[in-house]
């Protein structure tokens, strides 16, 4: 079906403005909720300095300090928790009817979804950048690997915000939060190799579960970029994470569009 160019341009311009509008709203919220940002940064720092120092006192991995070893894993953890919770937050938005006014606007659901995903990714990426500011405290970290790590974490964030929004579209109350935390977020975290090396010493069942977890590839890629310790070549990590992001984005956009 041929559409006149002018009408087509108008349509694309309006949808882009809609995506921007939703992103802009999320960014304003991010700027306002400073206490949330502080608490979301403090938690990974506690993992690094309290948990990391404690375990690191008697353990070292691949000849480097344990704290340095888990630094990439903790970055992935921040992305995982930050992204999924951001997405799940739409349950609350719907409860407060904040979304209602946005959903009746002449902007497609897909654009609203994209705006939300970008908003969540921005939110998480800012937190990651703050965490990178502490990287000088970990002597084994190669600062030149940061851009590569950031790229991979950004793509991971697209996948996980989409996943959170997909779940948020299905749930109607906040009661599901605990379930999702226990049965999805924590297993994804513990099975990602964030806290331990994935090698032949692992029981075979655990190794199997770790290898089917897409987050493992994010952790591996980031660890490769920052510490040059990795199981897979970077391109494999990159392809797996990107594929995961595409699938989650598609599932999320469909569920979000069907959301009542």
């Amino acid at each position, binding site marked *: 079906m041929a559409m006149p160019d002018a009408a087509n341009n108008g349509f694309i311009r309006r949808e882009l403005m809609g995506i921007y*509008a939703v992103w*802009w709203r999320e960014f304003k919220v991010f700027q306002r909720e400073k206490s949330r940002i502080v608490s979301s940064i403090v938690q990974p720092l506690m993992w690094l300095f309290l948990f990391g120092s404690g375990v690191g006192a008697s353990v070292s991995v691949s000849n480097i300090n344990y704290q340095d070893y888990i630094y990439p894993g903790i970055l992935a953890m921040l992305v995982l928790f930050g992204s999924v919770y951001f997405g799940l937050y739409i349950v609350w938005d719907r409860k407060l009817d904040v979304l209602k*006014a946005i959903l009746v606007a*002449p902007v497609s659901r897909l654009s609203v979804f994209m705006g939300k995903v970008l908003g969540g990714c921005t939110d998480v990426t800012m937190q990651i950048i703050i965490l990178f500011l502490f990287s000088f405290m970990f002597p084994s970290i190669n600062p030149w690997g940061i851009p590569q790590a950031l790229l991979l974490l950004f793509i991971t964030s697209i996948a996980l915000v989409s996943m959170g929004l997909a779940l948020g579209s299905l749930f109607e109350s906040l009661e599901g939060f605990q379930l999702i935390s226990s049965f999805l977020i924590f297993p994804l975290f513990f099975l990602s190799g964030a806290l331990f090396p994935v090698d032949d010493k692992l029981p075979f069942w655990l190794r199997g579960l770790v290898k089917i977890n897409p987050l493992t590839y994010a952790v591996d890629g980031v660890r490769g970029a920052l510490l040059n310790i990795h199981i897979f070549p970077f391109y494999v990590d990159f392809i797996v994470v990107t594929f995961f992001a595409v699938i989650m984005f598609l599932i999320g956009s469909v569920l979000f569009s069907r959301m009542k």
Partner: protein
Amino acid sequence: MSIITTKGLTKNYGKIEAVRSIDLNIEKGEIFGLLGPNGAGKTTTIGMLCTIVRPTSGTAAIAGCDVIKEPAQVRRKVGIVFQDPTLDTVLSGRENLELHARLYGIPRAVREKRITEMLELVDLRQRSDDLTRTYSGGMRRRLELARGLLHRPAVLFLDEPTLGLDPQTRARIWEYIKRMAQVEQTTVVLTTHYMEEAEQVCDRVGIIDHGRIIELNSPDALKESMGGDTVMLKVKEPDLEKIRSLPYVSKAAVIDGLVEITMRNANQHLPDLLSHIQNVECVEIKVPTLSDVFIKLTGRDIREDAPEDSGGWVDSVVRYRQRGS
């Protein structure tokens, strides 16, 4: 010219017939009220006209655009103020309008000017940079009115715009609605269960019950259909024949020792009426209200099942879940 036309507009939720074959013509520039008890189908009807609810059958068009075939065009032509507040309380008043302006594709060149203009119209310019969570209920409603009209819609839908507000605030909100409809030259379609308020604001009202429009006319015409005003007099030895012979009197009878007279425009003709009767001790005028019309048509008071003022979101979630299923 009709700006809204519906033909056989129907919505069923499973076996429940929420709206049954509504035919409506709403004229450009009028303030039209849909009155009816809770569950009568008001919100569903508005939902269909705003493309939020998909009709089961029938058609509806707004400014020439079909709600089923051209939902995007319809959405651009309507403004909506929902029953439950939908402001973003994390944003300031101005930011709420900025978000809306972008969602409705208002070009940057006119955005700021238009937002300021609307903030002034609802007297919120001084408070526009405060977060809306600090606003009172009346201020929030006013900002929602401003938001609903920001993109210059052809039709503004207001679902129970004064629900949950105190009487003084309600009166002010109606003033704003009238003023804004006039300034913006917008057609307004509203629902309310405050009959006396609808009477003062609406050019025409449609009374809706069990999903059907059972009466549609101007408030004055509806009240006249009640047979006129009633005047009750306490008089010794009334001359009923003489009273009945007066041109504006349609009925006169003695009931419980009082003379009950049914007549046109009691306010205007009362002095003349009294000049024909001697020794009047006491006078009472009863002018029919829309509530009386409602009771006559449906056999019950609209307040008997007035909507509850809280817990609204649960209802709206239920409504949304039902959409399209």
